[in-house]
């Protein structure tokens, strides 16, 4: 199905967030996730189901002021 990953349209076979992260190449990455604007803790990624057009944000530490 098609989903949005950090603003880019991607095709994934996975139907849960944790599987999608692995499929997209984020295995073991230090990231935080949100789906459709809601924070999804790492502990809940396995039960977070993705739908067609789900918008995933995958964020990591960055410099800031």
């Amino acid at each position, binding site marked *: 199905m098609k989903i949005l990953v*950090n*603003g880019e349209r991607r095709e994934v076979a996975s139907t849960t967030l944790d599987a999608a992260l692995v499929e*997209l*190449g*984020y295995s073991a*990455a*230090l*990231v*935080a*996730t*949100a789906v459709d*604007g*809601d*924070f999804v*803790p*790492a502990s809940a990624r396995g039960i977070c189901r993705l739908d067609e057009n789900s918008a995933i*944000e*995958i*964020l*990591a*530490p*960055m*410099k*800031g*002021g």
Partner: protein
Amino acid sequence: MLVYGTALHSRLLLGTALYPSPDVLADAVRASGTELVTVSLRRESAGMRAGQAFWTLIQGLGVRVLPNTAGCHSVREAVTTAQMAREVFATDWVKLEVIGEGDTLAPDVFGLVEAARILTDDGFKVFPYTTEDLVVAERLLRAGCEVLMPWGAPIGSGKGLNNPFGLRAMRAHFPDVPLVVDAGIGLPSHAAAAMELGYDAVLINTAVAQAGDPAAMAHAFRLAVEAGYAARLADPMEPRDMASPSTPVLGQAMLA
């Protein structure tokens, strides 16, 4: 300075953005003597893993981090970003920014108070980037904030303390609340002035990062903050409108 039960010995907080290189950032952090640096969250690409490299660098500096919600223009964005930052950085401290106006990067103080309440109810230790408005400050404290961070001038402007009257009033109005001037400081003299007003700390980023020699400027800010704080403790004189001789008049020779 005691914030949320944690003692900070350095009164200089440092941002980590806009440095020419990671090495220059590391040198500046060390030269500043800071114990607390601000960090952020941004989109991570699967291949680059830039976030991991940055986080490894920061962890190697042995400082505490204050994640920000920079760039957030709504309560929902700021709250979600804070939640994500808490998980990634493993801290419940957050520099809460809810930006209301693009040209000045002025806070949306209504959204700020609302987001502060949501986050403190959720266990966050909120450091709100606010204006010097006393009514907003009171609402932020009532929302559970135990520290306030009024701006000196628009973010990145280097203008210094635009409203010293307002900042002085805030200090007088909340004598026991830790107050940090955040944003707008461009020179060490601005930082010293903030400390002389009685502020507990200053947060600097652009003025150090964009200096010709960031580490040297970080050191200059360290000295300025220490000088301003020492001056405040020494109880500065009140300015006068008229001259007043400092050399005794008594015993002066009549030579005219």
